[in-house]
């Protein structure tokens, strides 16, 4: 039986999770503003609306199917979830691939604690769902987009989530393969950002570049975003929400590591912003605001997996590397891969999600993560502590995202493109005119710029 103090502790823990969930949900606004600000005015109502609608679309899919598939078998004692609401659906023992239980949040076990946990998790799912709206912006047909939203909430996100946070097979590689403490991803550099980032990559491949993005000579042309302050506000909102994203991932106020997490998060974001500023100035001569924002976001994405396991100095290093990685990846995506990613989603979420996953295996200092994933680990340790096993688990996780999850996203978009009349890309004349009127029926700014009168 729990003592009165313990009960109060679980209550406070649940409060922390719910507050964290609200902060993560608020991040949707951040994504909406960053993406809209970095796109053109003629598509602004469309871009902001995809970021708005995705919240509900993904939510509905996750509510009915996705949450059970991913977390039916999850149990976490800190805030009163002492038993899972379901069981394995596919696989068993150390090799579970999908779960079941709690469809549409009905049936037994739907306690306040479970509902709070759902809320936190649905917010993470929506982050995944909204990442491709960035790389696919300005040319994604609305009706096709809505199907992605439901698919991501119902199936796409739950897969890798089940395998890791849900307690599936990747969480058990400490046992099955002797790799570290199993795949470790504190708040989702991999589970959320890289999974979203590879979907962004798949979508950009299938849609192709925006009209006018590449010149006849194949060289990328700049298409400046229409509202820099909007994008900057979005970045600040993301920074704010990230404290809920990372720090509340302790699931416990009684685990004071949340403070370390929060501070490491801020450190990586701050160093990322500064490193991004310096690097882009070095490369192009001016402190491009978009790249500064990307630098901060890259640092935040990269610290998301390791934030609980590393020292402050490592957070600073991770932030700096992340910013440089993001900028260089933007160049590679445009110049080498000839892909068009209007907001840098592939670079920020994909590449730095990958880097964050690996960073756990590099910089983890063994001070946290004892017993993680049910392992006998005394603390997650990276190669700076001489242990290569964790990096192995991390590399395996990253490889699975690249080799299994990415193809699923690519297959989904390709199939949908084939099955959809006219494909999943907007009509050419609509793209030229701007998607706002033809697809949304309204202009974002009927009175500004060339749209007024």
């Amino acid at each position, binding site marked *: 039986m729990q003592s009165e103090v313990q009960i109060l502790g679980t209550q406070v823990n649940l409060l922390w999770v719910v507050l964290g969930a609200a902060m993560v949900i608020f991040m949707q606004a951040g994504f909406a503003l960053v993406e809209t600000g970095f796109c053109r005015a003629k598509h602004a109502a469309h871009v902001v609306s995809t970021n708005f609608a995705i919240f509900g679309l993904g939510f509905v899919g996750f509510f009915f199917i996705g949450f059970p598939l991913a977390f039916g078998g999850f149990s976490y004692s800190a805030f009163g979830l002492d038993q899972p609401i379901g069981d394995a659906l596919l696989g068993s023992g150390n090799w579970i691939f999908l779960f079941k239980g709690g469809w549409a949040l009905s049936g037994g076990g739907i306690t306040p604690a479970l509902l709070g946990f759902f809320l936190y998790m649905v917010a993470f799912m929506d982050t995944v769902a909204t990442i491709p709206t960035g790389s696919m912006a300005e040319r994604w047909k609305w009706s096709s987009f809505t199907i992605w939203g439901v698919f991501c909430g119902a199936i796409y996100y739950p897969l890798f989530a089940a395998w890791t946070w849900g307690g599936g097979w990747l969480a058990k590689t400490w046992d099955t393969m002797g790799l570290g403490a199993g795949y470790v991803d504190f708040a989702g550099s991999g589970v959320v950002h890289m999974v979203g980032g590879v979907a962004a990559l798949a979508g950009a491949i299938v849609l192709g570049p925006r009209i006018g993005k590449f010149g006849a000579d194949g060289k990328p042309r700049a298409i400046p975003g229409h509202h820099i302050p909007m994008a900057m506000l979005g970045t600040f909102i993301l920074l704010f929400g990230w404290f809920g994203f990372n720090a509340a991932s302790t699931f416990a106020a009684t685990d004071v590591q949340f403070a370390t997490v929060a501070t490491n998060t801020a450190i990586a974001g701050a160093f990322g912003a500064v490193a991004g500023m310096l690097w882009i100035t070095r490369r192009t001569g001016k402190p491009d605001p978009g790249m500064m924002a990307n630098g901060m976001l890259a640092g935040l994405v990269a610290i998301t997996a390791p934030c609980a396991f590393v020292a402050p100095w490592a957070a600073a290093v991770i932030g700096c590397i992340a910013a440089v990685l993001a900028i260089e990846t933007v160049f590679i995506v445009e110049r080498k891969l000839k892909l068009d990613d209007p907001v840098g989603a592939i670079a920020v979420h994909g590449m730095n999600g990958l880097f964050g996953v690996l960073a756990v295996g590099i910089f983890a200092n063994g001070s946290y993560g004892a017993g993680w994933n049910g392992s006998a680990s005394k603390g997650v340790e990276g190669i700076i502590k001489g242990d290569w096993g964790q990096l192995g688990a991390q590399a395996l996780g990253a490889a699975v995202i690249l080799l299994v999850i990415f193809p699923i996203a690519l297959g989904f978009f390709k199939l949908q493109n084939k099955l959809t009349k006219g494909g999943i890309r907007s009509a050419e004349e609509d793209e*030229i005119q701007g998607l706002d*009127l033809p697809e949304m*029926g309204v202009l974002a700014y009927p009175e500004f710029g060339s749209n007024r*009168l």
Partner: protein
Amino acid sequence: MKLITTIIKPFKLDDVKDALKSAGVQGMTVSEVRGFGRQGGHSETYRGSEYAIDFVPKVRIEIVVDDTAVDSVVDTIRSSANTGKIGDGKIWVTDVARLIRIRTGEEGNNAI
């Protein structure tokens, strides 16, 4: 000298500018306008109420040229702005009595 004014589709601006540049035109002045014509507007629905958008976005270019250049400039505009679809726009030519370059005070063809 003549003033050539043309109304074109906005996304044709770059093509027309490049074509004019190649044709030797060294200066022009561009502005945003809204056109009403055969192309017609369209009606949309906002919060359930219909509203007509009668005007479509267009770009106006004004170019002062030497009398001898009029025909070639008109042709250049026509061929570069043409999509063959309704709403491609107009070109009209008016007389210019005087032209002055503010910086130098030069007048006439020297000021072009």
